[in-house]
């Protein structure tokens, strides 16, 4: 009951207090119209694109996931969980969870959704051979069993009050039991798949049997245009209606051309992690010195052109209700940095700095840092390495390297995956038992104000102790043609948390002329 009420209470927030950046062209209220074909271009695409929800790892994958599948839980614009395929979600101890499924839900092949499908869909993440992106989180589910055709019981290995948010991760979408071949997606989502060619295109058509609110669009075509300029050109020439990942440098031009921009304050950040278990990071002075050397304002200004929020070396973004705004903001202080670096003994040395196009803007941030360092006599050698293989070959291996972290649906997940002592993705190898115990408490507490206090403390610990430097949180920028309506900013990710297709509608009367 507890969790369910949590969900209910939060859902009140839906639709309120949204960010309104770039919403000018949307201001005219008009009744949504059904029908039409929307052509969308994402920024990444490759032959490794997949329709297996467990393996989805890139933006276009997530979009397809939201088109064809549903999870038990969905997350809204502010990352609040709502019921989707689940009708009720109950736990008394945050350890054992009872899930009651929505009735009369059909897969695209006409079969009905049952508890077996849910059990299959969640359990498969625990098989390493599936290659699930959420292998680690799935392992926290000690047992998943069907109690009845509409009831599933999940037992966790430790209490976790944020478990509903975990179920909202799109990788945990529900597929038909027994599915091994994902060439044709068989989900419960609002669209059916008409065509899918990895790396080239996906065409989705409206699912007339959809259980929820029917989408307005008749069909959606999704392609990937990795080349920035080409993506913008495609929008401006009218070849596509909506694009993701707009370069801040083109916002001005797009606006002049009458195109709409959606600026979403997603919690994505590109961080510089200094490994605390290796030579440089062993010196706290060095770590602190680098943190003072990062010119966050300049990165915001020169790299992101203002489309970002300054970070404070902790992973909770300012728009989160748990953001610790009392933590003093660290700012650029070359004198202090010089003093600290000198004390660390590394001032004369050339520090290697590994960056890659794989980690968004990391090359530019590295250059900004390198220049600032050169001004105080600290030499840095920027090693830009290829994007391919970066995450396994360089990330978390170099003494100073960049990472790129996507937002998690709950602070506990962010802390758990990135900063807990036992996490395999603890980028700076920061081990702090106090932090770990705070995290345990936070996950099991029922009291929201205590939870907030715990999160505040944890933010302070991370900011001062971890080797992770977070200069900025990026804003996601999407651009759309004037006839595209219904787009809203979302904290869940670009293109309304990858879920635009359920809300967008086309006003053919508008903006045909540019």
């Amino acid at each position, binding site marked *: 009951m507890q969790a369910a009420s949590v969900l209910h209470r939060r859902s009140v927030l839906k639709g309120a207090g949204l960010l309104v950046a770039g919403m000018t062209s949307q201001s005219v209220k008009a009744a949504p119209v059904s029908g039409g074909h929307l052509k969308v271009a994402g920024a990444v695409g490759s032959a490794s694109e997949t329709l297996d929800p467990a393996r989805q790892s890139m933006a276009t994958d997530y979009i397809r996931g939201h088109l064809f599948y549903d999870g038990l839980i969905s997350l809204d614009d502010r990352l609040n969980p709502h019921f989707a395929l689940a009708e009720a979600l109950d736990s008394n101890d945050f350890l054992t969870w009872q899930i009651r499924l929505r009735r009369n839900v059909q897969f695209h092949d006409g079969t009905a959704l049952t508890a077996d499908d849910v059990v299959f869909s969640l359990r498969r993440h625990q098989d390493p051979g599936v290659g699930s992106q959420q292998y680690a989180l799935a392992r926290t589910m000690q047992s998943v069993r069907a109690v009845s055709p509409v009831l599933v019981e999940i037992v966790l290995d430790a209490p976790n009050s944020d478990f509903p948010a975990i179920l909202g991760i799109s990788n945990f979408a529900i597929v038909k039991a027994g599915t091994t071949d994902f060439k044709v997606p068989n989900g419960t989502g609002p669209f059916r798949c008409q065509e899918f060619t990895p790396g080239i295109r996906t065409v989705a058509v409206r699912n007339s049997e959809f259980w929820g609110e029917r989408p307005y669009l008749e069909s959606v075509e999704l392609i990937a245009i990795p080349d920035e300029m080409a993506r913008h050109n495609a929008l401006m020439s009218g070849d596509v209606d909506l694009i993701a990942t707009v*370069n801040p*440098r083109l916002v001005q031009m797009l606006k002049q051309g009458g195109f709409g921009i959606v600026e979403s304050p997603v919690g994505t950040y590109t961080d510089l992690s200094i490994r605390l278990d290796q030579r440089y990071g062993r010196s706290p002075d060095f770590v602190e010195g680098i943190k003072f050397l990062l010119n966050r304002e*300049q990165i915001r200004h*020169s790299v992101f052109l203002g489309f970002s929020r300054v970070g404070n070396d902790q992973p909770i973004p300012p728009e989160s209700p748990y953001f610790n705004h009392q933590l003093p903001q660290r700012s650029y202080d070359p004198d202090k940095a010089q003093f600290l670096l000198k004390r660390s003994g590394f001032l004369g040395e050339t520090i290697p700095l590994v960056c890659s196009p794989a980690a968004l803007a990391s090359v530019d941030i590295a250059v900004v840092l390198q*220049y600032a360092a*050169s001004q105080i006599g600290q030499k840095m050698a920027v090693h830009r390495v290829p994007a391919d*293989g970066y995450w396994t070959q360089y990330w978390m291996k170099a003494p100073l390297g960049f990472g790129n972290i996507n937002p998690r649906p709950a602070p506990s997940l962010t802390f758990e995956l990135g900063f807990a002592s036992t996490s395999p993705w603890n980028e700076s190898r920061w081990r702090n038992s106090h932090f770990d115990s705070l995290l345990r408490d936070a996950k099991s507490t029922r009291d929201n104000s205590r939870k907030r206090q715990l999160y505040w403390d944890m933010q302070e610990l991370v900011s001062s102790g971890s080797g992770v430097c977070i200069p900025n949180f990026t804003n996601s920028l999407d651009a759309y043609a004037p006839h595209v309506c219904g787009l809203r900013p979302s904290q869940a990710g670009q293109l309304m948390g990858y879920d635009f297709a359920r809300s967008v509608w086309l006003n053919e009367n508008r903006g045909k002329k540019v």
Partner: protein
Amino acid sequence: MIAMIGKFRSRHDRVLLLIVFWLLLALLGPLCSSHDPGAIGSQPVFSAPSAAHLLGTDYLGRDTLGRLLNGIRHTVLLCFASTLVSCSVGTFLGIAAVTARPWVEALTGRLADGFLSIPSLLFALLVIAVFGTSTTALIVTMGVIYTPGAYRTSRALAQRIARLDFVTVARARGESTPYIILQEILPNMTGPMITDVGLRFIYAVLLLSNLSFLGIGVQPPEVDLGSMVRENMLGMAYGSPAMIVPVVVIGVLTVGINLALDSSSGRR
């Protein structure tokens, strides 16, 4: 053939002069700019030319002129070095194919064919993926890519020269193979090979430009001309000199050397 060799000295001066000019610009150019090419200030990005920034600023608000001189340095030196590598290795292999045993020619011929059949961007991508983007890796990669071409040219030349009577006479005199290669064959290949060097230099500039498309280039904050165009591509929408000027410089560099080569070799 003989006439070509004889006229080499005077005719290739112009090409050499042009190459020397670019080399000087590459070596001394960056000293002329008051701006640190890595310096990032608070200037707006893609700004128009002004007194402080003669060519405006780039996508990070850096001084375009400083970046440009830095780009010329890397493009010219990298391409020069890789051309030297490909031409010397190619020349060596070409002469070896002519003077050594027949299987050497068969082997090198197949190798050259094989390398030519791999698209150069693919090859660069593979090698850079293995060795990472270092200046050395770039030089070696581009060197290897253009070696088969240089090999073909030099083999054809060496074949023609080795058949000439003065080589026959030297062999009849009992001269050693190294002497024949170094004193009789090589000096007479220099003229045509300089033409070849010039052409290969241009190909290298173009390849380096296109490599930047795959994110391969010199390490930041250093830059080569192609990467500079690439990173400032968005400036096209604003007509930014940061994107246009390096394109023009690449054009002037390649077309200039090509025309000098054409006029020097009598366009044959």
